[in-house]
């Protein structure tokens, strides 16, 4: 009998030589799973992991992101005099948003930034939790209900001079227009005193939209079922915001949302037009209040090739649908007949 046969016969052996059977009448205890909010991500901020992450971000993620999503970065002058910790609050349309944002941040922020990621999505399996912690410095955030431990962890990291990327919508847009912002970023800013930098990410949904299992190929998934599609994107930073004297989290949250909205208008038009546009309900961030097909229609063509759109009527949203017409920051090329 060789060693393998001996091991096999041992495996077949009856208890006590073999493993015991579990009595049918006794419930098996749930295996201890340290995933989700309970995942221990401390290791991902130690030097070996930071070194690996920096190497991956700079040598793999950054070139890949540049390949599929060549980015125009605007407003980065607002970051010039900022010191950590900073909270970056961005709209969220695609899984591409996080790597894009991280790789376009100035180096002094890039390698000392954690990303708030949905605990139920990115941390539901040990391997996923480890992967995202290592490559993106993700930390689990509870998005379906208010959870103090998520906020405590984030506040603790901010106190340790880590920057935080947070998507206040709580998930990627299902239809192309931003969802209402939640108050997490404002709350953390009030609690820690860290400034909030509003960020508008434009165009990532064209490359990798959210897939909706209910409507395969649908729910505004322009690119559904056809993998990654290369497109140009814009990352627009706004001036940092801090809570005003006596301002509560709810009001500050609204101010953050408006700041991102302003950036959206600015990407669509120019700095001056964005500021002049009245708040008439045709939101450049949240889209028109209309039936679903008209909201989808107002997004404009996926490739932005057609010249003029008709909904909503305000000038900033009209231009937003033709982003390719942009010739430079804040300028629109005139198009004959339109």
């Amino acid at each position, binding site marked *: 009998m060789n060693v393998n046969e001996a091991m096999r016969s041992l495996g077949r052996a009856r208890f006590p030589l073999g493993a015991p059977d579990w009595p049918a009448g006794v419930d098996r205890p749930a295996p201890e799973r340290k995933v989700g909010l309970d995942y221990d991500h401390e290791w991902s901020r130690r030097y070996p992991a930071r070194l690996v992450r920096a190497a991956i971000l700079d040598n793999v993620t950054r070139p890949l992101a540049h390949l599929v999503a060549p980015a125009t970065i605007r407003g980065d002058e607002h970051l010039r005099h900022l010191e950590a910790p900073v909270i970056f609050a961005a709209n969220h349309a695609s899984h591409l948003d996080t790597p894009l944002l991280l790789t376009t941040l100035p180096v002094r922020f890039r390698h000392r930034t954690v990303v708030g990621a949905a605990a139920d999505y990115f941390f539901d399996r040990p391997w996923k939790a480890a992967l995202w912690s290592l490559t993106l410095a993700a930390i689990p955030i509870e998005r379906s209900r208010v959870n103090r431990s998520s906020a405590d962890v984030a506040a603790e990291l901010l106190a340790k001079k880590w920057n935080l990327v947070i998507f206040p919508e709580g998930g990627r847009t299902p239809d192309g227009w931003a969802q209402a912002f939640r108050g997490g970023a404002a709350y953390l800013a009030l609690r820690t005193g860290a400034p909030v930098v509003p960020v508008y990410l434009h165009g990532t949904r064209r490359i990798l939209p959210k897939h909706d299992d209910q409507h395969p*190929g649908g729910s505004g998934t322009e690119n559904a079922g056809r993998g990654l599609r290369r497109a140009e994107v814009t990352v627009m930073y706004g001036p940092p915001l801090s809570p005003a004297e006596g301002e509560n989290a709810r009001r500050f949250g609204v101010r953050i949302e408006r700041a991102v909205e302003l950036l959206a208008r600015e990407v669509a038009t120019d700095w001056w037009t964005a500021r002049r546009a009245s708040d008439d309900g045709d939101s450049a961030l949240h889209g028109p209040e209309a*039936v679903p097909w*008209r909201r989808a229609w107002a997004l404009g063509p996926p490739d932005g090739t057609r010249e003029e759109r008709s909904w909503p009527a305000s000038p900033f949203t009209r231009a937003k649908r033709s982003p390719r017409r942009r010739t430079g920051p804040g300028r629109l090329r005139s198009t004959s007949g339109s």
Partner: protein
Amino acid sequence: MTPRPGFVLEVDGSTPPTLFWKGEGFTLERLPEGSRVIYAPEPLDALKDPVGAIRHALEHPLGDSAPLSALLRPGMKLTICFDDVSLPLPPMEAPDARQMVIEEVLDAAATAGVDDVVLIAALALHRRMTEPELRHALGDRVYEAFAPHGLLTQHDAEDPENLVHLGKTSEGEDVEINKRAATSDLLVYVNISLVAMDGGHKSVATGLASYKSLRHHHNPTTMRHSKSFMDAPSSALHTSNWRMGRLIADSGVKVFQIETTLNTDTFPSQFAFLQRREWEWTLRDRATYTATAAALDATPGRLARQIFHSIKAPHALTSVQAGEVEAVHEQSLVSVWRQQGVVVEGQSDIVTMGLPYICPYNVNSIMNPILVACLGLGYFFNLYRGKPLVREGGVLIMQHPTKPDFDPAFHPSYIDFYEQVLTETTDPTEMHKLYEESFATDPWYIHLYRTGHAYHGVHPFYMWYWCAHALEHLGRVIVLGGDPKAVRRMGFSPASTMADALEMAKDVVGPSPTLTHLHAPPIMLADVQ
């Protein structure tokens, strides 16, 4: 250079061999001296600004119709119907004509504040379109805006809940069409008139109809009296559709018809030789032909089919018109004939044709023997106005492999039709009486039609009825290169070489026959004087 008109060549000793399609492949055949070959007119120039032309058409409608923008208002119910995957052939390169038109219509609807908009693929008893086909026809933007919300639908001729009976025509024909379309404040129909039989009242009266309504004109008697389908005044099929269309209008259904016509730019540049006259083939054309023909002969059928069905035609818009149905269609016909018309003097004893890999009913699928018959005898035979190209009692020789292969997903009832009906009879009238109803009402076929991508159970009968006029007119049908068993099953004669086929034809038409070859595709319409 101005596109050259169609041309009839008389074959002499110096004429090079003539290109014949044979399914997923082609060959060169030497025709007897004195034969005539009809070449299609060259593709007309495309509209320089198609979107501008569409906008102009919508705002300057023909006939008794207001501009589209004046017909749209908030709170209204708008339904946009469009031709299905059977048009155009081959499918055109993006953007499809339907996409261009529908985007403009939707822009106008959004501007007017119309919320209740539904899109319907007007597919009658055809198979439902797949998602990639819908995306190709409508564009991603339209698909994304409507499909996820259930607002992009496909006509279901077997859904009693969504059909409405509008009445009977003076000839007692039931008019039953899609309820959503019929009860809308405005029905916009977006058509592609690839040939002269498309469009007009046929768009709504056929595309959105039920079996109960369709059977009044899709039957052997009507088809036999459609001489030809391409000549509406002489087509019983169209006369019936026009009666129904007028009843639909009288019932209060407001139809805003948008018709587009395409040029005959049928094949991409790598297959340019397919639409050139053989004696004008360049060195590159000859090399491409030789390499392609040899490669296709050695390629497994399935792969060859995939290659051909991936071809997108560089068709371009030659006209777009909108407004009242009959006024619009009249203008479309002018454009179609301007592109496709060829004057031909007199008939011949024999007509030859090479049948390509595609017909309206096998897009992305297999061309089974019944569809081969339909393409040759139903479509190509009917590409005439005045008189058929072949004299009564003459012979039609068509080249196609005619393999008894079927697509079980798209054409399930065709398999049973081939095995059960054609083994008993090839007479359209007899099969109509004996078998049609059982196929048309078979619950399994209906289920597959409604939930899968199957043609309706009755569809193979209709394909055979399309042949009825030709079957009655011709003395013999010879299939060159066809599978002998399949060809005989359909009542035709198989031949392995052109020489054999001509010898067989002489048994019917005499020892010194006249011969005309229809050099299609590209499509042409013979105006036989």
